[in-house]
């Protein structure tokens, strides 16, 4: 036990460096050759395979697994990447238990799906490690397109447009590209700077000029982009966060979970990253789970994740809920925060139990907290955007917005699942639509 393990408050170095390193290694370690062959062998090469239908990017899963089984993981990677250029990241972060692997017929047969995600990683890692970028650009079209946001949606869109021979300028408000791949995904899902390496590899296609530190609404305007470019794609994600609307929300120790995670992802040395002893996370999605789990992995002694509805309504999959509990996170459901207590800094959060329709029951309890992470959803930020539907950009077809020549996709666009893989699918499909409309092949 390190000196700081029991120290109250928000302090660094609760765990020794070796312990930390162990905690933050790959959640699902890479398959070695033997494991990959054994796993690939289990695929039945189903007809009109249900796993393909379940993949938002429609990767030809049976084909790529067969290519692994026959000793050509490079060809398998091509099969994957031709549908999903961020197939490497998706292999790491997709909630496969609710996507391809849930649909796998061997899940039905034995409750043990083919390890599609890990096989996908095996194939893409092999090709990326060889430094091979398997795509080339078509003849230049002379068309110029602005892509705003270098997250999964923007990257997928930019790559596909560049492949079709268009010139792309890729703007991002942050100093680094990657979006939530770089700043949001749990550290144990993207180890060894994979997010950054993947972006470098993706950019090898050529024809994409990256402009970081350029924010729409600050350095660039949508009107200006529409003027200067033949088309604009918005993949700006959800930059804002929802507030709890409680008194004391600004007390010291209260933080947005996404900011905590971004700090963690960018931390050079996790031993120097401060974390509370008693941590409370409010929310029920992937962000909440990731914040809670990583707080535990950093050495927080008590971590509670509190969600206002029942377990079955949590956005985090059952698998992720179980991951959280296996790491020692306590999940409390049907409880709504009603007050933040403390004197300057937060000391306790008070909750009231609610029924499934969120009606208060009158039963209250308090949790000790020296750090509270709010993870109750992100929101779209920005002025002069196209028309909204609800709180996101309204789109029809492959991401067409209310403004001519402007497309949108990923988390900022209405109707998605807020997953990396759906962002990739939408970015890719918007690129195809932009390409078709610029080359006069629009439907």
């Amino acid at each position: 036990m390190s000196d700081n393990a029991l120290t109250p408050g928000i302090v660094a170095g609760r765990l020794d460096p070796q312990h930390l390193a162990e905690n933050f290694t790959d959640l699902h370690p890479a398959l070695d050759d033997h494991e990959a062959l054994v796993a690939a062998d289990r695929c039945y090469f189903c007809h009109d395979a249900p796993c393909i239908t379940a993949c938002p990017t429609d990767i030809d899963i049976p084909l790529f697994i067969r290519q692994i089984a026959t000793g050509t993981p490079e060809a398998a990677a091509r099969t994957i990447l031709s549908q999903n250029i961020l197939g490497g990241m998706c292999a790491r972060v997709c909630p496969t238990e609710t996507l391809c692997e849930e649909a796998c017929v061997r899940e039905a047969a034995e409750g043990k799906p083919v390890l599609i995600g890990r096989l996908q990683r095996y194939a893409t890692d092999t090709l990326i490690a060889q430094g091979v970028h398997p795509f080339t650009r078509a003849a230049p079209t002379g068309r110029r397109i602005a892509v705003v946001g270098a997250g999964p949606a923007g990257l997928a869109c930019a790559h596909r447009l560049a492949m079709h021979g268009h010139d792309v300028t890729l703007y991002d408000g942050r100093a680094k590209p990657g979006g939530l791949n770089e700043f949001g995904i749990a550290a144990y899902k993207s180890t060894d700077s994979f997010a950054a390496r993947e972006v470098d590899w993706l950019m090898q296609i050529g024809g994409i000029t990256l402009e970081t530190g350029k924010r729409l609404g600050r350095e660039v305007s949508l009107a200006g982009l529409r003027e200067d470019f033949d088309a604009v794609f918005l993949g700006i994600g959800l930059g804002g966060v929802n507030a709890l609307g409680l008194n004391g929300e600004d007390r010291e120790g209260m933080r947005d979970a996404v900011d905590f995670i971004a700090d963690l992802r960018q931390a050079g040395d996790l031993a120097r990253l401060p974390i509370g002893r008693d941590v409370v996370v409010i929310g029920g999605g992937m962000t909440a789970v990731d914040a809670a789990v990583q707080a535990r992995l950093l050495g927080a002694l008590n971590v509670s994740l509190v969600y206002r509805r029942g377990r079955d309504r949590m956005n985090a999959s059952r698998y992720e809920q179980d991951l959280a509990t296996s790491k020692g996170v306590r999940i409390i459901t049907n409880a709504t925060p009603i007050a933040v207590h403390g004197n300057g800094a937060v000391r306790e959060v008070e909750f009231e139990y609610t029924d499934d329709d969120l009606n208060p029951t009158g039963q209250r309890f308090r949790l000790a907290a020296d750090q509270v992470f709010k993870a109750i959803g992100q929101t779209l930020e920005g002025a002069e955007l196209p028309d909204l539907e609800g709180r996101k950009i309204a789109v029809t077809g492959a991401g067409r917005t209310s403004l001519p020549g402007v497309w949108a996709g990923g988390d900022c666009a209405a109707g998605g699942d807020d997953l990396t893989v759906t962002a990739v699918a939408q970015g890719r499909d918007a690129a195809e639509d932009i390409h078709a409309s610029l080359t006069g092949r629009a439907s």
Partner: protein
Amino acid sequence: MADLTTNFIGITSPNPFWLASAPPTDKEYNVRRAFEAGWGGVVWKTLGEAGPPVVNVNGPRYGAIYGADRRLLGLNNIELITDRPLEVNLEEMKRVKRDWPDRTLIASLMVPVNEDAWREILHRVEDTGCDGVELNFGCPHGMSERGMGSAVGQVPEYVGQVAHWCKKHSSLPVIVKLTPNITDIRKPALAAKEGGADAVSLINTINSITSVDLDSFSPEPSIDGKGAHGGYCGPAVKPIALNMVAEIARDPATRGLPISGIGGVTTWRDAAEFMALGAGNVQVCTAAMTYGFRIVQEMISGLSQYIDDKGFASVDQLVGRAVPNVVNWQDLNLNYVAKARISQDDCIKCGRCYAACEDTSHQAIAMSPDRVFTVKDDECVACNLCVNVCPVEGCITMEPMAAGAVDPRTGEVVRREYANWTTHPNNPGRCAAE
């Protein structure tokens, strides 16, 4: 991606993967879908004479054997040639070839052994625009009892005779499909060559009974309590087919005769192996019947990656590359000494190598009380059995001994120079080294 364009006896296909004559190629609907999936060519399901078509059984036609996880390894069938009218097949072939001019379409034929019957059918199929004909001398059941199929293929004189008639009455390239149900495959191959055939294709299916129902005592597939021997195919027959292809490719009498390799081709690797042993292209049946037409995509991507990796300019550079390395046993180098090596990092300590070697081979593997398995070099004859039974690929390897080292088993120095049985002192009939 390498260009897989293949020229086989003057017939160009976008890739060397043809569907063999069988149910996958029995009708227009299938063949169109096969071409859409990417197959380079098809050999249409065997056509018979005009008139009432043959009839098939109305019960199960197939039997199978499986590997672990119910992986289909061998399939057996009692199906006959096409049971649809000749006219219907011919019209369909014509339409398909018209719409898919870049793909190969071969007509497979089986009619009684008389010149008129062959002349008649050849004239009719020529009209379809097909790229060539394949003479089915291989079907081992149903048709052979009628004096066709393997009943012809087992008599080299008939094979040569029919090949000759076909060359005489048609300008189409002629491929003779050989039956493996014969002692020496080179005999019918030579007869085909001498009859003027442009190529041989092999193998057709092997006589077989896949299993017996132990309650009804009927062989499978069972038709009303009885079973007939059928034709065996699929991954299980590949080694037999590879050997037969190699025999034809390396025999001086048949060397150079183009070969279309058939039998158990399931992946690009299988295809590449057939081609390395001399096949100019391959044909596939069971793999398509097991997994559907889409498997050709893996074959195409795998073979092109391999051709690229090897730096070959085309598939032609692969064809026959392994043939010079197929020799007779007495030509193998007896001075080559290897020893099994177990990678302790990879070993999962199952003990299968130990059981195999201790019980049935040379007692050359040691097992320590804590289950560490090591090879005893002074006992190991390098038989390879442990490699074959080890469940972990690459865990046991065969390492050649360097010249000059002492083989602890024989106490002799490993010699660099080549020496085979023909000159070995133990060989009573040895010839003196020149």
